[in-house]
């Protein structure tokens, strides 16, 4: 049986690395006494796989991992048991049982499913701000209308210039921060739906950096907090939240 688990990583635990998060869940799953499946061999490990890792410093309520188990009472029971083991900074949002993989077919990896993500970008207002929130949003809406938004993407093989415009799926200014979103006095909250996943993973910082270059402002990466809201898979021509993909 495979469970798909949606969780939030918020508050001070945004400083945990992806590796720390995996280690944390291995221990939490043991504490919760979930009947988890282990690999064979002398160093058995829990069979779990994560979706797109979150950058250190970012918060999220749209994180996912798949977990192989032998048995359970109900998905609700798993959710409750896990939540009883979560310290402040982690929260289990949803647990679903995946339909069994048909014989002779390869299991679809969670990582490969991810095609887009929603983010909130919050302005902290710590530094002297060159633009008021109003001016900032005005400039930003002009910016995202540009047919070509060039940015330098640093990859393992080197720097490449890419056009971000086709990968910006949605931009909104009227989305309210959620309960788990970090709170800042400044109040500016930008909603972005960006292409994500193995092929073209567009990090919100890349867009923010390009915007600052466009507006002729210096980019201070610590001025913005990125909060991931959701990760999407593609079903035909529609983007659906990962947790609803099999519904």
């Amino acid at each position, binding site marked *: 049986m495979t469970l798909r688990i949606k969780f939030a990583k918020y*508050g*001070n*635990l945004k*400083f*945990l*690395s992806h*590796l*720390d998060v995996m*280690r*944390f869940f*291995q*221990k*939490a*799953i*043991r*504490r919760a*006494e979930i009947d988890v499946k*282990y690999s064979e061999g*002398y*160093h*058995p490990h829990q069979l779990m796989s994560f979706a797109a890792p979150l950058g*250190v*410093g970012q918060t999220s309520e749209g994180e996912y991992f798949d977990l192989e188990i032998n048995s359970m009472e109900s998905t609700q029971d798993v959710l409750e048991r896990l939540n009883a*083991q979560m*310290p*402040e*900074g982690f929260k289990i949002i949803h647990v679903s049982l995946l339909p069994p993989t048909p014989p002779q077919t390869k299991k679809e990896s969670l990582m490969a499913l991810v095609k887009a993500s929603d983010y909130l970008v919050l302005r*902290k207002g710590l530094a002297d701000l060159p633009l008021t929130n109003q001016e900032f949003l005005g400039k930003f809406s002009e910016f995202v209308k540009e047919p070509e938004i060039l940015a330098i993407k640093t990859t393992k093989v080197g720097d490449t210039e890419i056009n971000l415009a086709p990968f910006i799926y949605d931009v909104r200014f009227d989305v309210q921060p959620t309960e788990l979103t970090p709170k800042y006095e400044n109040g500016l909250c930008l909603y972005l739906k960006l292409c994500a996943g193995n092929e073209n993973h567009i990090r919100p910082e890349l867009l923010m950096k390009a915007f600052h270059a466009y507006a002729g402002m210096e980019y201070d*990466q*610590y001025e913005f*907090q990125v909060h991931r809201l959701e990760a999407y898979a593609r079903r035909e021509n529609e983007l659906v939240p990962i947790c609803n993909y099999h519904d």
Partner: protein
Amino acid sequence: MQKLALSDEILMNIEKPVRYIGGEVNSIKKSKDEVDVRFCMCFPDVYEIGMSHLGIQILYDMFNKFDGVWCERVYSPWPDLDKIMREKHIPLFALESQDPIKDFDFLGITLQYEMCYTNILQILDLSGIPLSAAERTEDDPIVIGGGPCSYNPEPIADFFDFFYIGEGETVYEDIINLYRKNRENGGSRRDFLEMVADVEGMYVPMFYDVEYNEDQTIKSFEPNNPHAKRTIRKQVEMKLSDTYYPDKPVVPFLQVVQDKVTLEIQRGCIRGCRFCQAGMLYRPIRERDVNFLKEQAVKMIKNTGHEEITLSSLSSSDYKALPELVYFLIDYFKKLQVNISLPSLRIDAFALDVMSKVQDIKKSSLTFAPEAGSQRLRNVINKGLTEENILNGSMDAFRGGWNNVKLYFMLGLPTETEEDIEQIAVLADKIAREYYEIPKDQRNGRVQITPSTSFFVPKPFTPFQWVSMNREEQFRAKARFLKQKVTEQLNARSIHYKWHDSDLTILEGIFARGDRRLSKLLLNVYKKGAIFDAWTDQFKKDLWDKAMEEEKTDLEFYVFREREKDELFPWDFINAGITKEFLWREYQTGLNEKVTPNCRKGCARCGAFEFHGGICYEVREKEEAK
């Protein structure tokens, strides 16, 4: 959500910010309004080292069980954050509340090794607490030292208000209550320290004066305060199955050095190896009840989710109910996929059976710690292990499928000759020869023998507390000599000799047996920028050389001379249970290459009998019945 002491910008610009944010599973948060005493427990090294230490976990759990006390933790900020905190004047803070250390009532610092001494100054300095205890005011926390190095606290005496000598489980609650009483009475810091000095095991350095002879040795060590005792008797917890032990150890988010549950099965050691300070200090051996340990193991695994449990003691094989405990753990934890690790196990049939059940034979190795290459020198150091034990144990293991043997030795032991050193290479070769006795078709590939050496540092409260230490050139020459001898062996290609360098060894030697005057050296080198000396990539030898030159630190006096039988040592005011007469007797017996039987075989009259319990009673009762 706890507000952090460091900004996002700082945390994003340092290595492993998780070291500084607290909030770990099982860490303890209390409301400030509900507590009247705040204690901060410090391990003066980086988080990953400090969080691996069992003693802190025990004391953290204990203090937090006391009514009205909130105990938090702090570790040394790594040099990257250290630099930022100094530049931006950010005071050092505790992990749980993120409050400045300076606001606490107590700062307790554990002293596990000498090379963390500059880190103590870093902690005090970043906290804004005056380094010297004499300069502290009513606004500063009371700074306490404890742990193995407090058995010679003199080199760091100036920096501490008092030292707790011995095991922490016994009188901390009394001390906290004295603190409250003194506060209610409107008493001063000095009044409190006088109350502390009345408690057995507590040493308040400022209440003593030291005078020196012309040859630099100590002439007198006298109390200057009516509350200060002439000798300080160590604290010992005699009821180890009925005392504090954490059910819910703190589970770090970061991968730490000991990322597992640690089960301390006993305290003390019966063996009496003459170089080993721990084996002398923690007498008498006291076992924890096997049922207590079983219950504790189950609870701790359940509450932490760790995937490994390790048994901790100085010599696990001497724990009487070891088979019962180990087979229980194997059975119980098998279905839960919890690994069991057993360090300090003597290789015998039981050990091999257990190892074959808990490890992958192909990947694991056998470990022997003969400490010296020849039987003669092993007799000098009272290491009971014989060549026959090693060869038979190895052969049994080889037949069981192992082909990897690790051997631990020391260079620079008293009376050591080239012949003794050569025997290290010869012994390694003999083990390899044993392996090749097995018919080729039954062998599991090539054998690998890895002897490694460290350099011997004489420690207080050991029979070798009188001996001179080797010089750096001698250490290096010995390591080179051994390397050469290894290459001359028949099976040289199967032997991989490793040695640790001697940079820190001499410094460790200075502080291990040093006196109060060394605090100037520490201050000097700290002001030059030395911290994290135990880390080879951080250790700055040039700073130490310069500081020693400026302070005219006399290495001949501190490390290279043989001491007189009746010399007054800086640590002689401590009664650790073992008498100086016993230690001298053991030293002489060692020089005569004679072995002293272990505590279980017979009482060597070390002095620990005065604690009225543990092995001493079992053995003496039997002896007296005869």
